[in-house]
């Protein structure tokens, strides 16, 4: 059975969770048919607020609902939520520490059809820099659904990053999902592939290719980019001596930045960052084509692993 998209999984999960938690309220700036918050809207029309094309207003209304004791899920395209509404997020959500859940759909390059205006490749960097913010990136559809109750019941601001599309499955068995706790999905001692979001599945595929070459690659999923599970990353550095980070995001300031910061302080090791170079992207026929064209291919991860391993001797 083909896996459903992340937004489909999220939308269904939100509507389902809304039945068990009456404090959940949902906002959307005229994108509910895209983010699929529409499932919640149809089921709980009194708890759904469409504010029109006004992402900053949506965030502020969500702030007010949170002050009033509700748990607002504010949905929008990541490109608008993280940038047009950034001041609201900084001042009223983070500095005011209101219990607002920002659900950033269509993140990365997943809105392939609309192109760079709607690609969101710097949002993790900016959100991660905000005090009080928790930044979570879902790796696949099953994970996107499982984050809904966890995010709702987590106390404080959360930025949950979702893809419009599906992703290579990152999990084929039950797994323990906890905010701030990374997951070692595959053991290996030669190199660690530390990935987030849609790049987790691709990193698992890269590990398979590396295994065929005789290279034992560990795969670590960091879903919570902030607060970073630094212990798990340091452990990977100590046990493999070389790391690759992989994210559907610019190489500046995202997961690669977070991992490099942690290792620079605690356990320096070679780090190769797989991500979008410091450039805007382009429109493409599908997400995979754009990802492959902008350095996010499985072969890019494999090549980065070889570079990281080669640098071990230089340390």
């Amino acid at each position, binding site marked *: 059975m083909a896996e459903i998209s992340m937004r489909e999984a999220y939308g269904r999960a939100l509507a389902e969770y809304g039945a068990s938690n009456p404090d959940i*309220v949902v906002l959307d700036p005229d994108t509910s048919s895209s983010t699929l918050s529409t499932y919640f809207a149809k089921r709980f029309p*009194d*708890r759904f*607020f469409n*504010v*029109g094309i*006004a992402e*900053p*207003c949506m965030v*502020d*209304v*969500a*702030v*007010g*609902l*949170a*002050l*009033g*004791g*509700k748990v*607002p899920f504010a949905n929008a395209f990541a490109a608008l939520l993280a940038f047009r509404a950034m*001041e*609201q997020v900084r*001042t*009223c959500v983070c*500095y*005011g*520490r209101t219990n607002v859940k920002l659900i950033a759909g269509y993140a990365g390059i997943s809105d392939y059809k609309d192109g760079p205006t709607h690609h969101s490749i710097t949002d993790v960097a900016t959100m991660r820099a905000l005090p009080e913010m928790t930044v979570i990136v879902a790796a696949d559809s099953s994970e996107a659904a499982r984050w809904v109750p966890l995010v709702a019941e987590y106390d404080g601001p959360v930025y949950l990053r979702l893809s419009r599309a599906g992703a290579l499955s990152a999990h084929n068995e039950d797994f323990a999902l906890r905010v701030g706790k990374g997951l070692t999905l595959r053991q290996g001692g030669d190199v660690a592939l530390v990935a987030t979001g849609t790049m987790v599945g691709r990193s698992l595929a890269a590990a398979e290719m590396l295994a065929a070459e005789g290279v034992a690659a560990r795969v670590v999923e960091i879903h919570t980019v902030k607060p970073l599970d630094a212990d798990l990353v340091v452990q990977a550095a100590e046990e493999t001596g070389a790391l690759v980070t992989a994210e559907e995001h610019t190489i500046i300031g995202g997961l690669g930045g977070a991992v490099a910061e942690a290792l620079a302080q605690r356990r320096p090791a070679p780090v190769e960052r797989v991500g979008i170079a410091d450039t805007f992207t382009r429109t493409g026929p599908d997400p995979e084509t754009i990802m492959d064209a902008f350095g996010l291919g499985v072969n890019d991860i494999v090549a980065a692993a070889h570079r990281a391993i080669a640098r071990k001797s230089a340390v």
Partner: protein
Amino acid sequence: MSHYPESLISGLEERARQLRITSLEMIFRRQAGHPGGSLSAAEIMAALFFHRLRLNPALPSWPERDRFIQSKGHASAILYAALAARGFFPTEDLAGWGNLECHLQGHPDRLKTPGVEMTSGILGHGIAIGAGLALAARLNQAAYRVYVLIGDGECQAGIVWEGAMTAAKFRLANMTVILDYNDVQLDGPVHEIMPLEPLAAKWHAFNWNVIEIDGHNIRQVLESLDLAAENHGGPTVIIAHTTKGKGVSFMENKSQWHGVAPDAAQFAQALAELAAPSAVAGGRV
């Protein structure tokens, strides 16, 4: 004719006078703050904090309290003066305003200061946040009202009108906005920097109930707040025509007093002008 007795009116006028004095004392002591927009809002704040708002200073998080958001957060001096006078924290705290260890931040911070409903200081947020609070009241079947004090220059920010559309769409009759229309902003007169007129027509066009008053006339402030609460059709904006720097002759209508502290001689003159209760018998001349 209003049912408010003259004794109540004169008492609130005295409160307003004290709020002006306390605000200027704070700004002078700290040599920082925003005098102009604090002085213009004195009668509004007096009417709200000493008559209209249902508050419980001993229990700032009392669930049934009315919610007041000072969207024009730069006028924090008069908010702090009102909260202290109302008993939310000791008046001695006001002397520490701006000190690193003091809970009183340059702009209001809901996490640090009891009675501050929402962090503010960057202009424009109050109406949209207030709309969210009003929606929460509806969902929770809570009886509290939401009051938002905004500035006029603030109305140049697009987010104000995004919030205005939202409050109107959801018919938030439990929400009252008071617009401190002193026509002066940092760089000069509002009508020159970015004209707002026809301002009442704008709010009408956004489907708000609109009341225009003399914002220095306590009786008019009280009556307009009553009218707003009695209207069940949607949100109300009270356009309060005020004078920036009201009560201190050399500050009145002067943009240079938007965010500058007086020196010792100026402070002494201001206190002298505010000394007599009759000095600010606004709206009754």
